[in-house]
């Protein structure tokens, strides 16, 4: 699963780069410093999995100039040494329209190998797709895109997803 880290980050950034029609968006006020995803966004442990930040500066720099994203961070979620999931959070620039459904669909359509499906988890609409033997869950919150990728052999993906929806508040 680790080898897919960089691929997903690049996909996430390129997906937001290619999304059409941002238009004149009304972007909610940011809760962090200008343009940055907060470092402390993910708790140290989530559903018994230990989180750790991952360095994705390289792939992000490749596409930064063409993206609607100003910042991306990634965390790994491990059970001992075994990687079970990753969490990526991207922060959109002011000219993106993450609150618009057309924008959201144009972004998520470029991630994963299956047509994304909309699912209601609590009060949150989550897009679900899959790729490379991973389940991929995506949702938009304020000016952020949150992407949780879960390994195929992890037995509680939906429980993890619900925990993430509840605990990740950018």
């Amino acid at each position, binding site marked *: 699963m680790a080898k897919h880290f960089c691929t997903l980050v690049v996909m996430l950034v390129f997906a937001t780069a290619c999304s059409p029609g941002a238009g004149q968006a009304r972007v909610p006020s940011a809760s962090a410093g200008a343009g940055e995803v907060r470092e402390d966004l993910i708790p140290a442990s989530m559903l018994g999995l230990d989180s750790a930040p991952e360095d994705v500066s390289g792939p992000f720099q490749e596409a930064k100039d063409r993206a609607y994203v100003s910042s991306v961070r990634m965390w790994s979620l491990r059970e001992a040494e075994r990687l079970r999931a990753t969490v990526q959070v991207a922060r959109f620039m002011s000219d993106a329209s993450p609150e618009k459904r057309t924008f959201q669909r144009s972004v998520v359509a470029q991630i994963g190998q299956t047509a994304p499906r909309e*699912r209601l988890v*609590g009060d949150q609409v989550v897009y679900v797709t*899959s790729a490379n033997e991973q389940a991929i869950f995506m949702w938009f919150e304020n000016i952020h895109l949150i992407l949780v990728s879960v390994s195929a052999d992890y037995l509680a993906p*939906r429980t993890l*997803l619900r925990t993430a929806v509840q605990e990740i508040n950018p």
Partner: protein
Amino acid sequence: MRRAIAAGFCLLLLAACGRSQAQSIEPEDLDDFARNTSLTSREFSFTRESGENRLQIDGYIQDDYRYEAQVLFNGQLVYEEKVIDDTRFLRVENPPLLEPLRTFRLLEQFTPTTLPQVGTLSGLDLQTEDLLATKQWAADPTGAPAEFQSEDAATGTLDALEVWKRVRFLESLPSIIGDEGGRVTEWNPDNANYLPSKDKFPPNDTGRFSDRFVEKFLEDGVRFDVAPDAFDPTATPTGLQDIERFFLYTSVWAKDGWITRVGRAFELPDPEDPAYEDFYEPLRSGTIGEPAKEFLSLLKQTRNRRLYTEFYTFRPPAGDREVVGPEGAVLAVLKPPTPVEGRPSEGPGQVEATATVEAPAP
């Protein structure tokens, strides 16, 4: 005379109400309504009547990964289940009804070989079936149906698909409605061509118009009828879907941004109608393939041209409600073991490491 006046008045009232709602709901709105409804907590009810039998599933959907339902057969509770994220809970209330329910589902699928012959009625392993016979709650921490589950992958009477299909039904509504112009029309009993006898979902079972009907009509909203494909005499049916394509009628009721009801009627045409000679001739002459022969068997069992009628209804929940796991559930495997041809399962199934994998769609 009074009845005629009353009927006329009710028609007028309906027409007036229909017109006012027609101004606000168009067929093009139905896809959005289906999405809105599917992304909302809701109570639902599903019924399927075929011949003298009736399957009913009543449930509550808190969200897409938390729902609960009761499955009834001919008015009696057979089993109930809850799905909470990755975990499935199951309790059988009436084990003797599993056999007739299984038969009913076989007829729905028209392919007896779809259900694996693992030597148990439910399709589960023998140990789990013994547990369920005690009417206790069983819990499988990885038993929830997979995200990209195929509807054709039925595995047993107690598999998760029976309820799962009803929970996910609205997702398929846009494809049922289709995007071909002219297939979707607003129901209009004032139309000169309207005949109650041809209506697949007549307003009132007795054919009379009454205050109850008016109330019910307004409650469900505006009705749209979706016509099936025009019959193609050159088509050779190889399975149920090939036949449903021409004779499965759908009606959709919408109100206040919701899909409130969907009706589906699988009804064959009049055998005396020469327009359908090409459909009935292979059945009469016996020159049909195996799937169609099983279909013919169903036709004989139901003894009328209406093979089945289904209804889905959706309502907002009465109040805040959460799906909660039952206390004291016993750990079990609620997915069938891999069937071995000619040999019943001899022990508990194995929890597959990939049981809840969100596998790529086929």
